[in-house]
């Protein structure tokens, strides 16, 4: 695991989609607790609104109408939110120490004061989660750190009437869900997601990546180019110095004598 989260401290969600009724208490509770303004939306022929996470929307329900047998239909509800990844793409690319940081509970938290608005995390997140507020500062689910420190469960989990959003010790949640034979998503991916899903069907049915991973180009950028690049800087400087002291500069004062040699 990238940044060494102690498993026994790690807190997280278990999102059991089979229980979700799409009531969106979670969506509103988060807005309320975090005192966020409403997003302006338009009716476009779907219950799903807003159509994407916004700087003022940290979790939302995706309404997925899937056709089952002919004539049949099913309606799936997926709670979309920051996964608090064990290996978090957003943290990996964040150039400003302390802007995105890991708490002892394993939360990928952030400090807007330290965010430098580079927006790298937007691109590095395997789940396209972080958004930018009007000050161009990162905003996303912070797992209600303020509530956790007061011993309260996250607002969304507290509001969920059906037990879809269960919050607690990550290992316990996983063990409990596994005991009931649920199909889990995110137990080991990306160093273990802080938000583990119990899905009905393959992840693709919910529009989730089957094997979530940090995008390849982001990996190359941070894990290959960065170290090699640093080596390259010093290497090129070193090479030049070496050249200077071994082969030496091309002095011009001797040139005229040796003139004919180049004819």
């Amino acid at each position: 695991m990238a940044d060494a989260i102690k498993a026994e401290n790690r807190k997280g969600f278990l999102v059991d989609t089979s229980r979700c009724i799409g009531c969106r208490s979670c969506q509103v509770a988060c807005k309320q607790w975090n005192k966020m303004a409403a997003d302006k939306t338009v009716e476009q022929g779907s219950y799903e609104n807003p159509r994407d996470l916004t700087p003022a929307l940290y979790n939302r329900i995706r309404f997925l109408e899937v056709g089952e047998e002919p004539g049949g239909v099913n309606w799936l509800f997926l709670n979309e939110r920051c996964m608090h990844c064990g290996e978090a793409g957003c943290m990996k690319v964040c150039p400003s120490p302390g802007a995105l940081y890991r708490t002892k509970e394993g939360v990928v938290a952030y400090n807007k004061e330290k965010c430098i608005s580079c927006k790298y995390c937007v691109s590095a997140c395997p789940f396209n989660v972080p958004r930018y507020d009007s000050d161009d500062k990162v905003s996303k689910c912070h797992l209600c750190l303020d509530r956790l420190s007061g011993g309260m469960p996250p607002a969304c989990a507290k509001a969920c009437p059906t037990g879809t959003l269960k919050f607690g010790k990550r290992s316990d949640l996983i063990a409990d869900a596994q005991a009931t034979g649920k199909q889990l998503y995110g137990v080991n991916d990306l160093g273990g997601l802080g938000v583990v899903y119990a899905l009905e069907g393959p992840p693709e049915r919910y529009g989730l990546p089957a094997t979530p991973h940090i995008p390849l180009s982001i990996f190359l950028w941070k894990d290959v180019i960065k170290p090699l690049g640093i080596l390259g800087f010093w290497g090129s400087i070193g090479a030049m110095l070496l050249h200077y002291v071994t082969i030496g500069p091309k002095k011009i004062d001797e040139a005229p004598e040796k003139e004919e040699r180049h004819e």
Partner: protein
Amino acid sequence: MSNYIERFTAGERVLHWIVTASFFTLLLSGLGLFSRLFNGYFTLFGGGGNAIMVHKIAGIVFFFSSLYMFLKHRRDVSTFDEDDRRWIEQRGGYLSREEAHFNIGKYNPGQKLFAIFIAAATLILGVTGLFIWAPTLFPRWIVQLSLMIHGLMFVGTVMFVVVHVYLATIGNPGTIEAMLYGDVRSMWAKRHHPKWYKEASGENP
């Protein structure tokens, strides 16, 4: 025969130093973004947010000035002849203490390639930079790829520039004068760019 011969006009020199200044501004403001190891460089600009601001401005300056510089020199740097081939075969004589002489025009092939590389890099860095500037306006994969390429080009450019700076200063004593005063010593010209010297002075070296 005068001791000096003009190599760059004042305009060309100013342009070059604008490119240089913006490049180093980009380098310094970009280092902190490149890796958390270089976070300290942000303090030069009063924090990361400002550094990004500076980087964007310098980027615009660099983009246009660098491309303009290439366009100005494009004739001199885009054609290669038989002598250039020889130069390349012998790596311009830089790899041995033995004296090597080549009948080179205004620029040697190394310089030409450097110029072409910088032009290409400017384009690529500029375009990818734009994607990174406003990541939400473009498809995620483009931005992700851009981040990688920008980093790659950054590293490459810096390495080339290191070489360039070396060769333009202590590696080839006398060269710097071309960019400082515009005039180079005839001896330098005959030594490094005999063909150009002949054309420019009408003299046979």
